[in-house]
Every structure is written in C-alpha cells, then in structure tokens.
C-alpha cells in the first residue's frame, strides 16, 4: 500500500505551515533520512526528512502552498512493486481550502489523536496523620538540648539501619559546624559519617543518586542558605523522580540543617526557606521547636521513604527540653500539636516562631485573653484539621513566622482557614511575619526586621477587638 507523507508538526505548538520547497520530484528514489522538502513555520524554515523508503509517487501539495494544516498528506511514497496507479483516486489533493475546512479523512484515520478529555480532575487524596504515640505512665523524661536530641535521633537510626549515613561539610572530624553530629564519626566511622568538600550542588545530587540506588542519606547543609546552590537537585531530582518514573523510583533522603535567621549574620545567612520548600509536591517539610519533637520527627524523617526537608534553627539548638526516654520514640509526620490550650484566639506558628507565640500567650493571659497556641511541627503536609478545629472554637487566628509575608506560610494558613472555617471567623486572620527586607546586620535593624512578642500580642488583641 502506498504510504502518505503527512505535513509534520515541527514544534510543540505548530498547527500549520507553508510548503516552501520540494527537494525531490515525482519518480525520485527516497530512503530514510533523505531531505525531501522544506517547510516554513512561524519560527523557522525546517527540513523534512523521509522516514520511509520507496519512490516519490505523487506530490499532493504543491511548492509554495501556504497554511497547510499539520497531518495533511503532502505526498505519496510507493513501495517496491507499486506504481502511480496504486494511488487511490479519491486521495484528497490538499489545498489551503481543504486544510482549513477539515483535516483530510486519510489523516484522521491514521492519527487517532486522544479525545479531548472532559473528565473533571480527581480530588487530591486526603491523608490523615496518626496521633502522637502515648508515652507510658512513669516514663523517665531526660533533659537535653535540641542539638543533642537531633544527634541521638541520627545515632539511633544509624544503629538500626546500615543504609543510613550522614554527609555534609564538617560533619565528621570537626564534629559538626554547630556540633549537631558530635560523636557520630567516633561511633560509626568515616564510611558512614562523611566530610564533603564545600560543594552543595554536587553532594546534594550525589546524595540523591545514592538514595535512588536505595541508600538513606542524611545530607546536612551547614545552613539552608547554602542549599540554594543545591535546590535544583532537591526539587528537580529528589522531589520529582518518583512521579516522573510512574512510581518506580523514589528516594528516601533527609536534607537537614539550620534555617532562617540566627544572630547578626546579615542577609545571605538569615533567610527562612519554609515557604519555598513547602510549595513543592513530592517533598515533606518538617520544622520542630522542641527537643522532643526534633528527636521524634527526625527519626520519622529518616525512616520516611520520601525526600524530607528538615528545617532546624540555630537559635534553638541550645534550648533544653524534656525528651521521653524510650527505646524508639518516633512522632508522626504531618501532625500539629496544641502547645497551649485556650479559647479566645488561635496563634499558629512553628520552629523559632513558637518563642514569640508562647511568650505572647503569657502576656495575653495577663489581660484575660486565653490564646490557644498551635505548633505546626510539619509544614507539608500541613495539619489543616488541627488548625480548623481550633479556629472553629476561637473564631480568631494569628499566624507567626520569621519568613517574608508574600507567598508565605501564613498566607497559606489564612487561605485554608477561609476555605474551611470562614463562617466561624469573628475577625479577619492576622499574620505576623519578617519584614520584607534583606536581613540587616545592625543589631537594632535586625531586631526590627524580625517578628516580636509585642507584635504578636497586638495582632491577637486586634483580632479580639481589644
């Protein structure tokens, strides 16, 4: 049967083009790869290569024809033993008119293009997080810093699973730039506690590759500010590969390190990346504020089969808290915690923002306002249920974060409250954020750039109309 050569689409958006020139004439022998014609698109003149072999039997669209629709037959190739009479009489001679009126039947028959789909998009699945495990009565509570809790979490998981290793700048011999990995080299050796060169993009990619091969890396960034060098590997490689592979190839990897402002380290070392990472499908984002949560959630993050961003805070490393002494204390990812119960206003925060939130709640109590303070702990997936249940009770909400306002996590929380509890609100949601400036170095300006307890108190009072 003779083979039609169709007007090709030469770009993702091309619908028609001009047949500028024929480089072969009727009767010429053609083999795969021969350039047979030139076609002008809106962008360029392109050469058309033959992908079938035979003899050019008939040219159906003449040189110089304008606006030939994609998939219009433009010529016919005859195979061995065929001649011009094999070409069916009803072969449509495409012209501009024909192309415009309707695609030729032949093209239609050969190209069963997917039907335009009117099916509505399915709903995103709702994932419910488990509650925190019960701490058995009489469990000993150990006072430790968040720094120690993070170290213990890593050490316990490394003892439990030989595929877990930690890599990053100064994590081994130096014992960690912030001493979070202290003692790990001594216990696990340099095969599993690996000092890297200062090469964030490279080792984030290397870690992701090791995770694709089934290992479970913990990649420490000395600060998440340096992870901007690596963000392509985190998002394009770690977060998207499971989906792009149709579920075949995922990666279990934790990217962790201090995030946000420390103290007097200026603009390039003080950024909060919570909203950046929590924008990305495929990532989980955790940001604890207490030693116990840091331990239980880092252990969960290491065991999670997905890429996890674990945002710590330098200001909190030295804070001490009570951590239950249990063989295996693991907390659920995606579950917020009521850090303080109250009935008048809901204050929502996480990480170092909890300092402002809890202190503000103390102040508010003096004025007779009982604030309920929610520690999100996990930013993605966000525990909307806990937020909504609280707002339905209080009718008022204030979000607190150190990051910038535009497209921030507070904006997302406010939207969710509108979506799920609009009718319960007695006042618009208020947000306290970092000011939209690069972090200044001067002590007084830095203080102004960050949220303050006073700002949170004022916002809470204003949504209470006090």
């Amino acid at each position, binding site marked *: 049967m003779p083979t039609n050569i*169709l007007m*090709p*689409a*030469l*770009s*993702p958006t*091309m619908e028609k083009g001009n047949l500028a020139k024929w480089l072969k004439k009727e009767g010429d022998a053609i083999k*795969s*790869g021969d*350039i047979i014609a030139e076609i002008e698109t809106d*962008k*360029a*003149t*392109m*050469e*058309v*290569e033959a*992908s*079938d072999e035979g003899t050019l039997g008939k040219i159906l669209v003449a040189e110089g024809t304008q606006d030939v629709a*994609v998939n219009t037959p433009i010529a016919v190739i005859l195979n061995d033993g065929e001649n011009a009479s094999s070409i069916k009489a009803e072969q449509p001679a495409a012209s501009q008119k024909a192309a415009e009126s309707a695609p030729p039947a032949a093209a239609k028959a050969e*190209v*069963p*293009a*997917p039907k335009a789909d009117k*099916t509505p*998009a*399915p*709903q*995103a699945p709702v994932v419910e997080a488990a509650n925190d495990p019960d701490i058995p009565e009489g469990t000993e509570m150990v006072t430790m810093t968040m720094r120690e809790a993070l170290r213990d979490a890593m050490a316990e998981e490394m003892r439990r699973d030989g595929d877990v290793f930690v890599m990053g700048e100064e994590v081994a011999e130096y014992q960690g730039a912030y001493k979070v990995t202290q003692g790990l080299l001594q216990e696990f050796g340099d*095969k599993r506690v690996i000092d890297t*060169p200062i*090469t964030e*993009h*490279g*080792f984030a*990619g*290397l*870690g*992701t*590759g*090791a995770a*694709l*091969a*089934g*290992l479970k890396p913990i990649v420490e960034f000395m600060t998440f500010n340096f992870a901007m060098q690596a963000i*392509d*590997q985190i998002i*394009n*490689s770690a977060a998207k590969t*499971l*989906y*792009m*592979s*149709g*579920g*075949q*190839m*995922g990666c279990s990897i934790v990217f962790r390190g201090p995030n946000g402002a420390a103290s007097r380290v200026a603009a390039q070392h003080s950024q909060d990346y919570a909203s950046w990472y929590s924008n990305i*499908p*495929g990532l989980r984002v955790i940001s604890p504020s207490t030693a116990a949560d840091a331990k239980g959630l880092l252990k969960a993050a290491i065991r999670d089969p997905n890429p996890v961003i674990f945002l710590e805070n330098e200001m909190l490393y030295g804070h001490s808290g009570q951590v239950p002494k249990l063989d295996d204390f693991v907390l659920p990812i995606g579950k917020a915690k009521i850090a303080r119960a109250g009935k008048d206003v809901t204050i929502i925060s996480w990480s170092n923002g909890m300092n402002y939130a809890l202190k503000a709640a103390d102040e508010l109590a003096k004025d007779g306002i009982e604030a309920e303070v929610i520690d999100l702990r996990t930013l993605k997936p966000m525990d909307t249920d806990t937020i909504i249940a609280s707002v339905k009770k209080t009718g008022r909400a204030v979000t607190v974060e150190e990051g910038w306002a535009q497209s921030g996590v507070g904006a997302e929380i406010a939207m969710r409250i509108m979506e799920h509890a609009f009718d319960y609100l007695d006042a618009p949601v208020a947000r306290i954020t970092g000011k939209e400036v690069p972090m200044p170095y001067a002590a007084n300006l830095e203080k102004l750039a960050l949220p303050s307890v006073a700002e949170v108190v004022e916002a809470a009072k204003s949504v209470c109309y006090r």
Partner: protein
Amino acid sequence: MSAVKAKSNTQTSDDPAPSTPLIEFSKEQDLSAYQTMLTIRRFEEKAGQMYGMGLIGGFCHLYIGQEAVVVGMQMALKEGDQVITGYRDHGHMIACGLDPKGVMAELTGRAHGLSKGKGGSMHMFSKEKGFYGGHGIVGAQVPLGTGLAFANRYRGNDNVTLAYFGDGAANQGQVYESFNMAELWKLPVVYVIENNRYAMGTSSTRSSAETNLSRRGLSFKIPGEQVDGMDVRAVKAAADKAVAWCRAGKGPYILEMLTYRYRGHSMSDPAKYRTREEVDKVRTSHDPIDMVRQRVLDKKFAKEEDLKKIDASVRDLVNEAAEFATHDPEPDVSELFTDIYR
C-alpha cells in the same frame, strides 16, 4: 572543524592510561551491534515521524547518528551495572534492553508507557534494567550518577555506573563538583561525554575554552581519552578498559566520545548553525551503522539478504511499538495524584 576521527590519546600527566587499541569484533558481536544500532535508528526515525503527526508532544530529542556510543558502551557492562543519562535518552533505554513498546508509549504519553505516561520523552527509568533516567536538567545526571557509584562503593560490590552527558553539560559546574568527589572517594563511575559538537545550537568551539573534553578531569587526576564514537569497536574497546579500571577500585574514568547527531537538537530545531554539507559528510563517510554493515559484508559475516532480513525484523519491531503506542489509552485520570509520595 576536524573530522570525527579520534586521536585516542590519554591525558593525565602523572598517571597516563595508554590509548586503547581497537579490537576487531567477532561475527556475533558485529551482527548484534548492527541490529541494536539499527533498532535505535529506526525507532528514532519513527519517533520523529510520530512527532510530526502530533502523536508525541513537547520536546523530543533524537539520537540518530550517535548509536555506536551507547551500543558499544553497553557491551562492556554486566548485570548490576547502572546507566544514567540526560534527556536524549531513547537510545540508552533500547540499548539497556527495554521494550520499545514501553518507550514509544511513554513518548505518546499513554498508560503503558514506562512511566505510565507521566514522564515523557525525557523521563524514563527502569530499576530492573539498571537504567536510572532520563533527566531533563543539563548536567544534573552527573552528580546523580556519581551517587549511584557511591552506593556501589558503600555496599562493597563491584558494580560500575555509566554517567552520560554531552559537550554542553561538560561546562556545568556540578560536573566538576562530581569529578572532585568521585576521584577523592575513588567511586566506580565512567563519565561518558557524548561530544556531538553542538550544545543545542552552539558549537563546542564557541562554548568551550578547552575543546578536548577528555582533558577536563586532568586537575582532578581522572584519566581520560578521546574515542571515535562513530566506530562501535573503538567504543567497546575503550569501554572495556574504563569499566575494568572502575571495577578494580581505581576510581572514575572519562571517555570523550567524538560523535555527531544528524538531526536538530530537538524536533523544533532547524539546525541553521551548521551546513548541510557538514552533516552529509559524516553521514556518507562515517555513519556508525553503514560502517558495520559494510564490514559485515566484507568479512562475509552475512550476506546482503541476511541483512535485509534483520532490517525487516527491526522495522516490524518498531512498527509494532508505534502501533502499540498509538492505540494504548491515555493514563486513567486517577493517576493524576498517584506517585507523588510513597
């Protein structure tokens, strides 16, 4: 511009690896290489045609002209070795032994494509065949491939990773970050630079201060050599040497494959940055498939009609793949929200 012919010289000053002499193929090797290379070529021609018909969307980067590289490299591998590459990946998948039907159905975005239609031309994977993608960001596969090699070393096995990238990616910073760590930690990875002379539309002479890319590992003490990437025997010989180097625990190795792509960078590239004569010259004098075909006939490994039989079976295989990929349904809408987390 010099011809594709390689000098096959080795570049590290303090640890020179002698240039790899070409070794003649047996009849079986020649015929097998011919069949696989032809399958890739016919597959890509069909993909180009289907793109023209609107059946394949988005970007589609064809491998036509470069077939000898991946086929020769693959001949040096064993079970358990891994392969990773960029977005010009159809040939690598076929060489790794993946079913052309699954590859083509991914190109058309259908349910039984290798990634269920969710990845497309640039994103396909197969853990079973040791194929780790299929990556769309130029150069990103290099640290990832180095990480695969890291996992081999961590586990103490003797598997080797091939990390392919092009002359364009060779200018990405992350490539050198990877070189450094690979040599520092003696990771078993062969960096296969497919130098097809053009990074999209920019020739290597316009983008690279040092165009001998086999020298790019020099300051990391990684040995490297240039290879005639159009001659599958030369590729195989160099691959054997490089893979053996890695398997022996000596660290990474760089092979610069001097090759050429006949088609544009992607389907929508008119390729005006080079002359038709340049393309025709390579095609007529140094085509990787024609050279094997001629050799097979000269050595009487097969007769013209035997090769015609192979040609016909390859065409059938590719036509079946195209037929399958045209009629396979699109993915079910329920797939929209699957495979984001596991």
